[in-house]
């Protein structure tokens, strides 16, 4: 019962007396001024809303099922290598005295991972969204602004200058960049002890716009090291910014993708960040066949002091992203509720309709 009621009563002719020399103060008889603009007056009756409930139910339930199935088909494995448990191979690295420590964790993939596989690292209880932390960066410096390079923003305090030289990249975010190295090996078979290294791709993990527009090295033709010569590396870093990826010029300095990924501060204190890509080889072989793997970790990043945890995640991905049962379940639930309510209201409505002969009553 939606009706378009055009109540326009303008009778076309000019209002007021014809040839009115006497100025009449009669209000204009326009639809707007008389509050009689033509208007669509939707009337939400049971008759109009009930079909909506059914339609919503009918649309939402299949979508939900689709998402749920997709999500369930995603393979995901998570390996915690914090090393707080004494049994963990990485337990030895917790001692503060150890400068560079390596540990290895074995794990088994029960099912093979097909298609592209994404390797994430995950941190817990790490407040990348703390206000003091979030603002502690200088985007002009990261954009390659030469003046900001030498004179970083005040927001970077207390990671702005060190030994009287500007820090590049400055700020708490950059200073705390994740610096564990993860390497993955497949144990081909029990007999052959020599593991096969899985090729990990470092590029293509950051947003294209970040990599190409937002982050830039300082301009100039000289070498990267030359460009950064007046700056000093962040306090916690082992190597300078121009040494992040010495092999690849397009992945070094500020445009190093690991760095860019880290600089996109996470929304929640438990988060994952994309570390490497494992590209699928061909259709015949799964990218990561089921079997024994071990993870080689260069353990640099301290999380024990703030009760944090570190994880390595391997995950395949679908059109809707990573594994996330929430969306599917929510769609199915809402769709069902909607459908059920539709049924209930239909029954109620029918009862009323039978007892009274009136047609849809307008408001």
């Amino acid at each position, binding site marked *: 019962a939606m009706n378009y009621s055009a109540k326009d009563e303008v009778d076309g002719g000019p209002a007021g007396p014809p040839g009115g020399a006497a100025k009449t103060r009669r209000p204009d008889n326009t639809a707007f001024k008389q509050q009689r603009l033509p208007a669509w007056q939707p009337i939400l009756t049971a008759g109009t809303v009930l079909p909506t409930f059914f339609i919503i139910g009918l649309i939402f339930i299949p979508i939900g099922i689709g998402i749920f199935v997709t999500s369930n088909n995603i393979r995901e494995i998570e390996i915690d290598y914090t090393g707080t448990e004494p049994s963990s191979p990485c337990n030895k690295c917790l001692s503060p005295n150890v400068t560079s420590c390596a540990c290895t964790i074995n794990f088994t993939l029960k099912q093979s991972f097909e298609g592209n596989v994404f390797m994430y690292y995950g941190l817990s209880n790490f407040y990348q969204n703390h206000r003091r932390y979030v603002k502690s960066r200088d985007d002009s410096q990261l954009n390659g602004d030469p003046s900001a390079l030498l004179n970083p*923003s005040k927001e970077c305090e207390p990671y702005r200058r060190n030994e009287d030289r500007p820090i590049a990249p400055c700020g708490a975010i950059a200073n705390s960049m994740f610096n564990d190295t993860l390497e993955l090996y497949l144990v081909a078979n029990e007999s052959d002890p020599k593991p096969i290294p899985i090729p990990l791709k470092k590029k293509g993990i950051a947003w294209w716009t970040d990599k190409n527009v937002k982050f830039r090295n300082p301009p100039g033709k000289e070498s990267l090291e030359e460009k950064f010569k007046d700056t000093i590396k962040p306090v916690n870093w082992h190597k300078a910014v121009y040494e992040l990826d010495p092999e690849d010029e397009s992945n070094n300095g500020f445009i190093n993708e690991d760095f860019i990924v880290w600089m996109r501060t996470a929304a929640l204190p438990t988060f994952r960040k994309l570390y490497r890509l494992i590209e699928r080889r061909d259709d015949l072989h799964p990218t990561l066949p089921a079997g024994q793997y071990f993870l080689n970790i260069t353990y640099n990043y301290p999380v024990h002091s703030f009760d944090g945890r570190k994880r390595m995640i391997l*995950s395949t991905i679908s059109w809707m992203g990573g594994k996330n049962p929430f969306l599917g379940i929510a769609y199915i639930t809402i769709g069902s509720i909607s459908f059920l309510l539709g049924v209930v209201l239909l029954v109620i409505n029918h009862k009323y309709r039978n007892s009274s002969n009136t047609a849809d009553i307008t408001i």
Partner: protein
Amino acid sequence: MFRRTLNRLCAGEEKRVGTRTVFVGNHPISGTEPYIAQRFCDNRIVSSKYTLWNFLPKNLFEQFRRIANFYFLIIFLVQVTVDTPTSPVTSGLPLFFVITVTAIKQGYEDWLRHRADNEVNKSAVYIIENAKRVRKESEKIKVGDVVEVQANETFPCDLILLSSCTTDGTCYVTTASLDGESNCKTHYAVRDTIALCTAESIDNLRATIECEQPQPDLYRFVGRISIYSNSIEAVARSLGPENLLLKGATLKNTKKIYGVAVYTGMETKMALNYQGKSQKCSAVEKSINAFLIVYLFILLTKAAVCTTLKYVWQSSPYNDEPWYNQKTQKERETFQVLKMFTDFLSFMVLFNFIIPVSMYVTVEMQKFLGSFFISWDKDFFDEEINEGALVNTSDLNEELGQVDYVFTDKTGTLTENSMEFIECCIDGHKYKGTTQEVDGLSQTDGPLAYFDKADKNREALFLRALCLCHTVEMKTNDDVDGPVEGAGFTYISSSPDEIALVKGAKRFGFTFLGNQNGYIRVENQRKEIEEYELLHTLNFDSVRRRMSVIVRTQKGDILLFCKGADSSIFPRVHSHQIELTKDHVERNAMDGYRTLCVAFKEIPPDDFERINAQLVEAKMALQDREEKLEKVFDEIETNMNLIGATAVEDKLQDQAAETIEALHAAGLKVWVLTGDKMETAKSTCYACRLFQTNTELLELTTKTIEESERKEDRLHELLIEYRKKLLHEFPKSTRSLKKAWTEHQEYGLIIDGSTLSLILNSSQDCSSNNYKSIFLQICMKCTAVLCCRMAPLQKAQIVRMVKNLKGSPITLSIGDGANDVSMILESHVGIGIKGKEGRQAARNSDYSVPKFKHLKKLLLVHGHLYYVRIAHLVQYFFYKNLCFILPQFLYQFFCGFSQQPLYDAAYLTMYNICFTSLPILAYSLLEQHINIDTLTADPRLYMKITGNAMLQLGPFLHWTFLAAFEGTVFFFGTYFLFQTSSLEDNGKIYGNWTFGTIVFTVLVFTVTLKLALDTRFWTWINHFVIWGSLAFYVFFSFFWGGIIWPFLKQQRMYFVFAQMLCSVSTWLAIILLIFISLFPEILLIVVKNVRRRSARRNLSCRRASDSLSARPSVRPLLLRTFSDESNIL
């Protein structure tokens, strides 16, 4: 009345002491006394508030006196001084915007005022100086200057008329710009200066004027002019308002006049009256303030909770300062207490959007723009006066939808106030008005025995009295000099009754021909012209309720004619004459006519000498002149001879009865407050269906009370009796009163002025309180109340009494005359009718309409719609800002209570300004949740919104819970969505700004769609702003994230929005979350719909049974005023 006294108090009491002496032409009077130059202010009018220099500080000061602006200023200052999560821009920009817009508006208005002032101050005037005509700027006029004014010019200051170009020293003036009365009024010069109509002669005048210090009352002036002709002896003449020409009035029909300035500049009566009305505050505004306090409390609680939790959380050192996120040296050194305080302030700032600046702007705009619809409404246009409704204040639009009590005047409001002479009685003989030729008087009404003719002399005397005892003026249409016999003139008077009477007399052969040089000319039945010298007049006023003139006939007899209400005449005439006339008067009153009695008295010459002396003395008095005059007249007006009575019909206004019925049906209580006599008022009340035939009337009048010896005892008895009756009828449940009305016996109460004052000002204090409370109990139980014989102040008293009732009901007063001004000012909403009794009521009202019938649409349609609109606006604003801020609050639990904002600064700023402001503004201007025709047709719909129904605790909680639910859904929906490694099919990750943007997108869409769900009237404007706002949001987000903004320190939002939309999951999640948020709302609509459907059915059943037992249609007493189809509901 009240305002006037207030004005007097405000405008410098010390200056008012004593009188001022003005030397005409500034010529000192040699020898009499030393010339002391009194200092008066110059003639500059300053209506502007600001100058170029003080504009900024003064305007800012005034703006920040508003509590809301001040609050936002504080927030802004906190943001500037303390290290806060959001930049000062987020709250500074809206505040700056609001302040600037207001400042520009006020500045512009002030500039206009400056311009108007300048126009007035610099205009050329002519002053007589040293016998020459000197051209000067208006602002240079000094007190005492002799000013020449020509026709159609406005007077530059308050002048005492010295002479005019006419020989009789009169001039015509229209005060349209002062009080809206466009008729010409005659002003007089003092007799001794009439002749001085050249510049030379006027320069030779030596005179002083003594007058009171400036007073704001336009109609009051007391002064004395002393003229020093050749001799030293001065001639003193009294001056009254008829000698005073007010600044702002315009000279008409007179070539030029000379006047002497007495009050100049800011001391003129116009300037003293130039004052804003006291602010009335609507119920909605009070609700807004209450909500504000609730939300302020929520804000403080949130900030306090967050601060506390922050310090609890930070108690473990690895949370306070982990290695990756160290504090600066400064932060470490700050005192703990100071840090906690700044943290508290920071949280306040973060959550301050919960109290939106923009709401004030939107509410103001809604009120301002919305009020145009009233003045644009063509239904309020009246052909006769060629005017529509006028809105004097836009603050009270919604109050029109909240009225509980309507107080209406009778004359001119319920009735037309277009008087028609119906009949008269002379010595008990009745004469019907006819238009027969010469001997019109012979026509009498047949059947009744005593309808023979009265004595011829008595007839003539009666008609002469009608011709003499009035204040009617002649206005010739073409010529200034003297009335031309025939059709060339019209009668003008402030009172339509008098015109009706004069015209009535004319019908019977006595024609009033005007007033010349103090002589009244009357043409009698034999076409002879009689002249009467007008000796003294005492005008009609509502306290005395009579007027008198003293004239000298050509023969030299001195006669006093007096006409007035029967109650004031009967005690003053010989008692044996009353009986005959009284019958007539009462019968006429029963028929709803206005009656006046006419009496006369012959004054012996000796007595006259004495009386004349007394009157002259009284007239010369500087202070309390009126009182003194009244006293003298009071003494003369005794032992008069009653000649007869007149009956004048006041027609009921078009659709007055329907309007009253509609108002009753809408659950309003209508009280009629009138100065008229009881019988007249009662019959009008029946005619306009305030009382039905089956209404039982309870009377508390002098009549019922005087039966007993001790009035108070009788009053007490009656009060108790009535109360018992009513309490018996209505069981204690006052709640269901409105329902009870339709089912029980209806009661009407009639009370008159004297009884009311007996109740209110009873001698024993304790019992008077008691009386008053009993009286109020009775009043509240009655459907209709009629208060007759009310003085203006009593009207206001009644309104005040009702206003202060328990539950403080909203009162509305409607009236047309000056006597209604006090009640119009007193009530919550004052409505003026642009009637025949001048424009005072319309000027002092909040709204003015041409007719009483317009009240129906004004309340039932405009009031209802405005209320619903603004109530929805207010609730929606609080709702959308709670939705907005709640996710930000919840986010604090996930970011270590670090005051990290969830949304980008641009979103924080723009949310209320751009993304969600226009749809609600359009809604609040255009919404018609029930369409206009239905609202007019079914007055009962008005009851739905009484008692501020949409802003009570229930709806408020509903909206608040809805907002809380939605805010939670937004946040946790997104939170669960983020429990995955990636949302994109390329495995890339999203950061905190994407999180915020998703929440914000859902938020903007949800609140806008929520409004769309509430909109019942979709004009193209609604479509445009709703979909336009959403489109703008999307467009803006792309734009904002599409560029590296050079002025921003951080490029937080760079491509965040575009990247977000690359993910299918995000799309699905946004749709899902919007739907979940709106789901309860949709469900509620459906449930309500089903409930309404069943309610409708019950209603229609009841209505069917109602129509069977329809009340007997009330037969109105004044049949000729409305047609039969009007009976149909």
